[in-house]
């Protein structure tokens, strides 16, 4: 039972982790994209429809990634090239994504989807207690863990990662050093879009293989909260995503056990927990100041 619960938590945490990891890279480059929810739902509808039409969940995932990245380009063009307000543009992206996905998905409602199977390493996945957890989950779970390690390594152990962080910390001096701020930010935004698309694809191909309107149900916003919650550190995003998953699954178990707590309070717990942790983390000013990209959300127009 314990292993099954942990796997359920992993399923709930994986889309949050992937989307948050993408947004982390975007924000590290100094851009705040509030459109995660919109890119995620576009990924979900694309993933579902492509997998349904081709019968291949992998093609679905691939399409979700591509569409997520393309959709984020819209945000990139407006905020980077036309220097529009990032908050408003991000919100518009979410709105557009929710509407557009509903239009695209209209003919796919009520159809059973294609589910991505699990990886089953022979013998190992039959180990007691941890076998299925470590060796018998869906492939995207492993991708999400690899992504966390990869982003961590990229940001802190590569020259390109250092460049990206310098753009986020001070775009003016980065520009003065000859770094192509705009180009780097375009790439970061597309990476974020690809991750959000993948997270959406996960929802529609692994979490619940079906398409319903608005099925991201606020998960994009949670992913945004996780990035701040984690004070822009990949390892902490991982911890936060699993903590959030544990709280939301835990409240359902509390109910099934018949605990006499109002279910609305239990439903509110993940949000209250997020606020409390945000406060605890951000009150330590020195710690957050070190990690916060100083140019986050600031418009940048290269002077010549």
């Amino acid at each position: 039972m314990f292993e099954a619960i942990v796997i359920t938590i992993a399923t709930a945490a994986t889309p949050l982790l992937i989307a948050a990891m993408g947004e982390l890279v975007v924000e590290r480059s100094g851009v705040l994209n509030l459109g995660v929810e919109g890119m995620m739902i576009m990924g979900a509808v694309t993933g579902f429809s492509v997998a349904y039409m081709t019968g291949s969940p992998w093609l679905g995932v691939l399409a979700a990634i591509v569409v997520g990245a393309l959709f984020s380009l819209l945000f990139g063009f407006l905020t980077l090239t036309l220097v529009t307000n990032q908050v408003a543009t991000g919100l518009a992206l979410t709105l557009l994504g929710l509407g557009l996905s509903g239009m695209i998905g209209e003919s796919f409602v009520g159809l059973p989807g294609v589910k991505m199977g699990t990886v089953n390493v022979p013998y190992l996945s039959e180990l007691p207690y941890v076998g299925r957890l470590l060796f018998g989950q869906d492939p995207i779970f492993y991708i999400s863990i690899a992504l966390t390690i990869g982003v961590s390594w990229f940001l802190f152990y590569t020259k390109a990662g250092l460049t990206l962080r310098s753009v986020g910390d001070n775009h003016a001096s980065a520009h003065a050093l000859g770094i192509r701020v705009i180009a780097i930010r375009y790439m970061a935004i597309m990476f974020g879009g690809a991750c959000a698309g993948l997270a959406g694809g996960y929802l529609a191909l692994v979490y619940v293989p079906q398409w319903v309107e608005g099925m991201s149900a606020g998960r994009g916003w949670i992913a945004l909260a996780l990035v701040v919650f984690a004070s822009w550190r990949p390892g902490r995003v991982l911890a936060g995503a699993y903590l959030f998953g544990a709280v939301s699954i835990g409240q359902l178990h509390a109910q099934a056990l018949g605990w006499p707590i109002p279910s609305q309070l239990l439903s509110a717990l993940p949000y209250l927990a997020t606020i409390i942790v945000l406060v605890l983390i951000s009150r330590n000013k020195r710690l957050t100041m070190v990690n916060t990209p100083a140019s986050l959300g600031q418009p940048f127009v290269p002077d010549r």
Partner: protein
Amino acid sequence: MKKYLLALAASAAILLPGAASAQDKTKACFIYVGPIGDFGYSYQHHQGLLDAQKHFGDKLETAYLESVPEGADAERAIERFARSGCDIIFATSFGFMDATNKIAGRFPDIKFEHATGYKREHPNVATYNSKFHEGRYVQGVIAASLSEKGVAGYIASFPIPEVVMGINAFVLGAQSVNPDFKVKVVWANTWFDAGKEADAAKALIDQGVDIITQHTDSTAPIQVASERGIKAFGQATDMIKFGPETQLTSIIDDWGPYYIERIGKVMDGTWEQQDVWGGMKEGHVVMAPYTNMPDDVKKLAEETEAKIKSGEFNPYTGPINKQDGTQWLADGEVAEDGFLLGLNFYVEGVDDQLPQ
């Protein structure tokens, strides 16, 4: 020039609705609270619209508005319909109750039908509802016959009387087979959130239930049950596609017959105010084929269904105790419809505390 004028007239005809439509056509309008693509509650009402359209063909014109929020928007939507030439307006969600009655007072010539409500403040307002709990009793019988552990999981939406009634009926049906049967309830606090419903199903299964039923609208629980290799019941619509080896049966809300009957009465001028609470007998509640169960269980289910359908048996027939063990209905006593419609307590055997 003449051609130009003709074109102009044609475009004017497009711009002015109703100008060209025949007077003898009856117009029926529907307001849904969710998207018709929810594959659940609103979807089924829309199927009812399509049935009516098919039945009446050219004699009927239909229109609908989906995803209408309850509140100020509902009133506007209903008024818009009232002004756009509708002869009968079906408001299909409880939350449209006050708005429907308000507009009905101002448009006495138009008939209004409100689903699941109880207010009929004007002679042109009728109410209708379905006894879904009859189907849940049959589900309970099936669940207790099949379950090895004697525990079922119930994913519930909101603690309104209709949902409480369904949980009780399910428990009563189960106890008629296995008096010690238990039900674990999880309140999802949503009608529709596939992810959350899936999580709730997983939590219940991890807690040891071996049958899942739901009073939420998405197909996610049945898909989870199918992955985990246990059985489940569908909701509102036949969900067999989502669990060919999982779905035992499903309670189908079939509004078609009612809509056809009421629109027909508007056409021949015999429409009258009424309060209908139809069940299996009236054809409002239909069970999907009984599948994935042994023949003896199937037979028992069919017999139970037949008894309810013929009116021979009412699921709410005593002796029934409340959850705390005190008596509610004495032996042979049948609960009154009016009381059931405001039901807010559990019967004995529910492993949950009702949110108050």
